[in-house]
C-alpha cells in the first residue's frame, strides 16, 4: 500500500468532510429548534458562494480573503433570517408536512432566482487563495484545503463553546427542548430562531465558498447534491445534534473520498447512500441521536 497516497486521500477526506460538516450543522440546528428540514439550506450555501464571487470580481482592489468571507457570510445570514421570516414563521404551528413542502418550494425558488440573476452557465471563481501548494515532504497540500480544514475545525470549536457556555447558547438549547416552556421562562423565541438561522446560514455559506474555491466554479445548482449529502451527514450523525452533524460530515466525506480513490468513483454515491440505509436500519436516530419518546 502506498502510504503517501493514503495520507493524501486522508487530507482530501478531511477537506470534503469539513465542507459537508459546515453545511450539515445548518440543517441540524434548524431541525433542532423548529423541527423543520430546511431544504433551502443548500441554496443558501450556493448564494454564499455567489456573494463571494461577486465581491471578489466586482471590487478591483484585491480584498483580503477574510473580508470576502465575512461579508458573504453576513449576507447569507441575513438571507437565512429573511427566508425564515417570510416563508416559515407563519407555518410554525401548521402540520410539519406543510412547512416541509414550503422549504422545498423555497429551495426551487432560490435556485431559479440564481439562474435568473447569474445565468445557468458556471462562473469561474477567481483564485482568492494562492494556488501554490504547501509541501509536507513529498505531499503537496493545496492552500485552499489548508484553509478549509483549519477554519472549519476552528469554527466548529467556537460554535460548540457558544452553545455550551453562553447565555444565548443556553437559550437555544432551551428552545430546542421545549418551545412553550422556554417562552414562559422569558426567552425571546423569535430572536433565538433568527439567531439559529443566521448561524446555520453563515456556516453553510462558508462551506459554499470553500467548495467553489476548491472546485473553481459557481453555478445555480451547486447546492443541490452537496446540500443533499450534507443533509445525509446530519441524519447520519443524529439530526438535531450539532456534534453528530460534524461527525456525520467527516464520515460521509471519508467514505466518499476513499471509495473514489480505492474502489471507483462510479460507486461513491451508491456506497454513501448504502451506508446511510444501514445506519438507519440499526440505529434509526443516527450515531449520536437520542431516542426521544414522542409525547402523546
Amino acid at each position, binding site marked *: 500500500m*502506498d502510504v*503517501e*497516497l493514503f495520507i*493524501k*486521500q486522508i487530507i*482530501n477526506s478531511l*477537506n*470534503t468532510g469539513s465542507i459537508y460538516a459546515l453545511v450539515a450543522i445548518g440543517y441540524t440546528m434548524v431541525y433542532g429548534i423548529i423541527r423543520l428540514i430546511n431544504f433551502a439550506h443548500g441554496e443558501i450555501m450556493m448564494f454564499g458562494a455567489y456573494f463571494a464571487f461577486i465581491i471578489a470580481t466586482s471590487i478591483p482592489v484585491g480584498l483580503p480573503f477574510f473580508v470576502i468571507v465575512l461579508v458573504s457570510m453576513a449576507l447569507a445570514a441575513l438571507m437565512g433570517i429573511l427566508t425564515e421570516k417570510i416563508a416559515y414563521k407563519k407555518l410554525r404551528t401548521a402540520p410539519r408536512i406543510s412547512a416541509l413542502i414550503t422549504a422545498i418550494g423555497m429551495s426551487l425558488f432560490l435556485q431559479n432566482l440564481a439562474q435568473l440573476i447569474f445565468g445557468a*452557465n*458556471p462562473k*469561474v471563481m477567481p483564485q482568492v487563495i494562492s*494556488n501554490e*501548494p504547501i509541501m509536507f515532504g513529498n505531499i*503537496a497540500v*493545496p*492552500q*485552499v*484545503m489548508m484553509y478549509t480544514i483549519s477554519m472549519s475545525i476552528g469554527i466548529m470549536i467556537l460554535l460548540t463553546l457558544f452553545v455550551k457556555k453562553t447565555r444565548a447558547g443556553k437559550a437555544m438549547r432551551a428552545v430546542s427542548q421545549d418551545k412553550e416552556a422556554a417562552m414562559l421562562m422569558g426567552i425571546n423565541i423569535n430572536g433565538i430562531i433568527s439567531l439559529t438561522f443566521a448561524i446555520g446560514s453563515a456556516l453553510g455559506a462558508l462551506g459554499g465558498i470553500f*467548495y467553489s474555491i*476548491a*472546485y*473553481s*466554479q459557481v453555478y445555480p445548482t*451547486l447546492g443541490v*447534491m*452537496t446540500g443533499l449529502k450534507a443533509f445525509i451527514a446530519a441524519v447520519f450523525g443524529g439530526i438535531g445534534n450539532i456534534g453528530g452533524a460534524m461527525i456525520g460530515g467527516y464520515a460521509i466525506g471519508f467514505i466518499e*473520498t*476513499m471509495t*473514489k*480513490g480505492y474502489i*471507483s*468513483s*462510479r460507486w461513491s*454515491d451508491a456506497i454513501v447512500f448504502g451506508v446511510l440505509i444501514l445506519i438507519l436500519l440499526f440505529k434509526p436516530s443516527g450515531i449520536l441521536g437520542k431516542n426521544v419518546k414522542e409525547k402523546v
Partner: protein
Amino acid sequence: MKKLLVLALTLSTVFLLSACGSSVDSVKLGVIGPLTGDYSMYGLAVENGAKLAADEINAAGGVLGLDLEIIAYDSKGDPTEGVNAYNRLRDEDEIDALIGGTFSGVTLAIKELAKEDNMPVLTPTATNPDVTLEAGNVFRACYTDSYQGTVAAVFANESTEIGASKAAVLYNRDDAYSEGLAMAFIAEFETRGTVVETLTFGAGDDDYSSVLDVIAASDAEVVFLPGYVAEVGAILTQADNKAIDIPFVGGDGWDGIEADYASVAEGNYFGNHYAKSDEAQVVVDFVANYEASFGDSPNALAALAYDAVYAMVAAMEDAESTDADLIIAALAGLDYQNAVTGSIRFDANGDPIKSITMIQIVSGEHLVIDKVEGS
C-alpha cells in the same frame, strides 16, 4: 373547408412551379443548421463559413462556369424541422447537393430521405458514427469521435514533446463523446504502451481531488482527458492546486479553454480541427477574410463548413457535372489538399482521413505543435 384546402394546394403548386422556373443558371448548395435559438451560434458559424467559401469561389469564376448559390434554412437543432428544411431545399430550391445538417441528430433524420433521393450530402460537423454508415451518398468533413481518440494516442506516444509509454485516462462516464474518445485512445495506446489507470467522473462531480491523487501516484507520463471546457477547466485547476505536473491531452471539446483557464491549462495539449494561429497560407487567408466579412473570429465549425463547400465544388469540377451520381463518385475519389482543417480524403464509409492539428496552450495562445494522422 375543402374548397379552402384545394385553393391552398393550387396556390402552393403555383409557387412551387414558379420557384422551379427561376433556377437554371446557378449551382445550388443547401445548408441546414440551427440558425435561431440556443444553438444558433453553431448554425450561424456553418452558414457564414459556407457563404464565405461561395463568395470566394464566385469571385474566382464560379463552378462549372456557373454561379454558386448557398441557400440556408433553419433546423432549430430539431430533427423534424431539419426534415422540413430538407424537403423545402429539395422541392422548392432544387439544390444540387447538401452541406449539412450541422447536428448529428438532424443529419441522421435527413439521411434516409437523402439516400432515397440520391442526394450528395457532405456534412461539415456531424460526428456521430452512424451518420455515414450504409449511405454511399453521405460524407462528412469532420473526423469522428473515435478517430480523435486514436490520433491523441498516436500523439501521446510518438511526439517528441510527450513520448509517453505509460498513460492514465480520465473521462466522463455520463457523456458519450468523452467515453467514445477514451475508448478509442485506450485501444490505440495499448498497442504502443500501457494504460496504467483508467478513471472516470460523473456529470455532477465537482471534486476530482482523490482521482487526481491516484493519477499522481501512478507512473503515468501523460493523462488523456477528453471532455468539455467546464469540467476540464475544473479538473486542471485542481491538478494545478496539487502541483501535478504530468501533461494532459484532450480533444476538440477543449476548444476555447484559454478564455477562462489560461493559467491552469498552460503547457497542456489538445487536438482540434484547425488552429487560428496556424501559419499556413490557407488558414491565414481564411481567418482574415472571415473576420473582414463577419466581424468575429471563426470557430472550428465555420472552418469545416468552409472546407465542405470547397470540397463539394472540387468534386463537381472533377465530375464536370452536377449530376448526383457523378458527384457522389467524385466525392468518393476526392483528394482535396488545400483545406483549412487539413487535407480531405474519404474512406469507404465516407468518413475523412485527415490530419488533426495538435495544439499546445502557451501563454494563453494556441501553439500548433504537430499535425497528426491516425493510421
